[in-house]
């Protein structure tokens, strides 16, 4: 396949990666997009103003511009989500490969812990962990990672088990390949496709769960601009100022849709069996 054709062939992937990149760029260049308006400082005189030409999404109780806060919120949401996905991808895959490759008690210990996590509603434990550790984005990331790595471990383990007893693996060991080499050159590449697909489709889910945690008050702390937190802060004004809740919600929705579509189209490319 020629390189030029790739983007034309997979139109949906191309389209949603462009949107995804746009979202990421918006987050990075938030100060430019919002023309230098501060997300955390407002003028109390202009509190709770409905959307207008000056404040296209309106202002909150403290007179802060909602549009600015929504744009800056993308920074928190995206960086936290990507951190969670990268952590669970790396930790889960590594543990899964170790369990599958070594078997025996390593396998038993790792997989029993994974079973324990799976036999339990994840968000409940995440809420408890995030709440107990104290409200902060870092702790929300820890909590979600703690309950979400198991899926990757199981997948990686089953993929490793599929090739563990094949002849080429035995041949590599016999010819003196060291264990780390075996893990990285033989086991890891075999798991990567499936796990990258899983990670890509997980971005949206993780973003939703992170914003749920923030909404409950177990994630980002005021005055940080974070979508879940903004919805929580807007809740008492549901009657007087519904715009406080409408726009951050739409922001979450759009970003999750884009990344879900991106994940789906990536799966279609990498895993044609599925259809």
């Amino acid at each position, binding site marked *: 396949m020629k390189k030029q054709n790739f983007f034309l062939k997979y139109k949906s992937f191309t389209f949603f990666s462009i949107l995804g990149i746009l979202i990421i760029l918006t987050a990075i260049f938030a100060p430019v997009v919002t023309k230098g308006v501060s997300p955390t400082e407002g003028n109390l005189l202009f509190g709770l103003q409905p959307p207008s030409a000056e404040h296209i999404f309106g202002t909150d109780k403290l007179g802060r511009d909602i549009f600015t806060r929504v744009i800056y919120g993308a920074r928190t949401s995206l960086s936290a989500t990507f951190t969670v996905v990268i952590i669970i991808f790396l930790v889960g895959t590594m543990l899964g490969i170790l369990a599958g490759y070594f078997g025996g008690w390593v396998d038993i210990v790792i997989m029993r812990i994974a079973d324990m996590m799976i036999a339990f*509603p*994840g968000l409940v434990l995440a809420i*408890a962990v995030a709440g107990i550790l104290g409200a902060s984005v870092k702790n929300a990331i820890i909590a979600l990672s703690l309950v979400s790595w198991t899926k990757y471990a199981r997948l990686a383990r089953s993929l490793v088990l599929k090739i563990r007893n094949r002849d080429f693996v035995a041949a590599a060991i016999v010819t003196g390949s060291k264990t780390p080499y075996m893990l990285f050159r033989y086991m890891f590449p075999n798991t990567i496709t499936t796990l990258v697909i899983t990670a890509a489709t997980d971005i*949206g889910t993780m973003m939703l769960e992170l914003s749920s945690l923030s*909404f*409950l008050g177990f994630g980002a702390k005021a005055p940080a601009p974070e979508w879940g937190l903004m919805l929580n802060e807007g809740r008492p004004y549901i009657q007087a100022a519904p715009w406080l809740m409408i726009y951050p*919600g739409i922001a979450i929705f759009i970003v999750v849709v884009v990344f879900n579509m991106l994940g789906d189209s990536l799966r279609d490319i990498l895993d044609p069996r599925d259809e």
Partner: protein
Amino acid sequence: MSMKKIGARLLQMLVVLLGISFLTFLLTYMAPGDPVRTMFAATGVIPSEEVMNEVRESMGLNDPFLVQYGRWLGNCLRGNFGESYAYGKPVVTLLLARLWPTLRLTLFSMVLMLIVSVPLGMLSAVYKNKLIDYFVRLITFFGVSLPNFWVGLMLMLLFCVKVNWLPVISSAGDFKSMILPSATLAIAMASKYTRQVRTAVLEELNQDYVIGATARGVKSWKILWLNVFPNSLLPLITMLGLSIGSLLGGTSVVEVVFSYPGMGNLAVSAITAYDYPLIQGYVLWVAVIYMLINLLVDISYNYVDPRMRLKR
């Protein structure tokens, strides 16, 4: 599933519960925040450090970790989950009072979800790649991408503030106050489940017996409801059991949105108040409920799929 298998599952559940209990205890043990201080703060008087230390001593909070865990576990096994720091009542009493509202909410939203997603999923499978299938897929796609607490807030804005049909705060816990919370939960769940119904039914539709039956002139609705649907029940029930897990997690968020008097709402306020015994009790209870439901799901295979009975 034979009795022997059920016994093995129960044993496995016990091991998992032991692990969960250890984890929750460890977490609350390491947690920042001083429960004794919180307890006194609730009464409005902060006594001297010596007095507080005495209270800590008498509550056993100064003992080594494993001693505390062992004592706590022993009490739990006897049905004593301790006393809530914030409410001054036994955790069991508090949780029991909230158990039924949460279960009722969960069951009601599950029924709502099934009413919506089974017909939609089948429709979408039967008319695969037709307009109606695209439409269903689009809707469900949006459904899974929406944060459920936001859906709750928007429903609230629509039905309570704009048209004033339903109560904003569901603290009464009656049927009327259950409508919006369960609709919120059902929207997210139904979107996921409709896709799973579609996949499961599609899988069955591709089987040879469907072509055979069609060739013999059996009416297509008969094939669909009498053959295809019963055959796709097995994966559907499994997925239903699994989705109850996210339903139980989702209830805590939705309960907070609507101030619904359930266990999740209680747990969230317990976490903010560093009410450790209540948090521990809640986490353990949810784990037990979830596992029991999944055990029931496994046992139900016996009735849904006769092959399971033969297998032993």
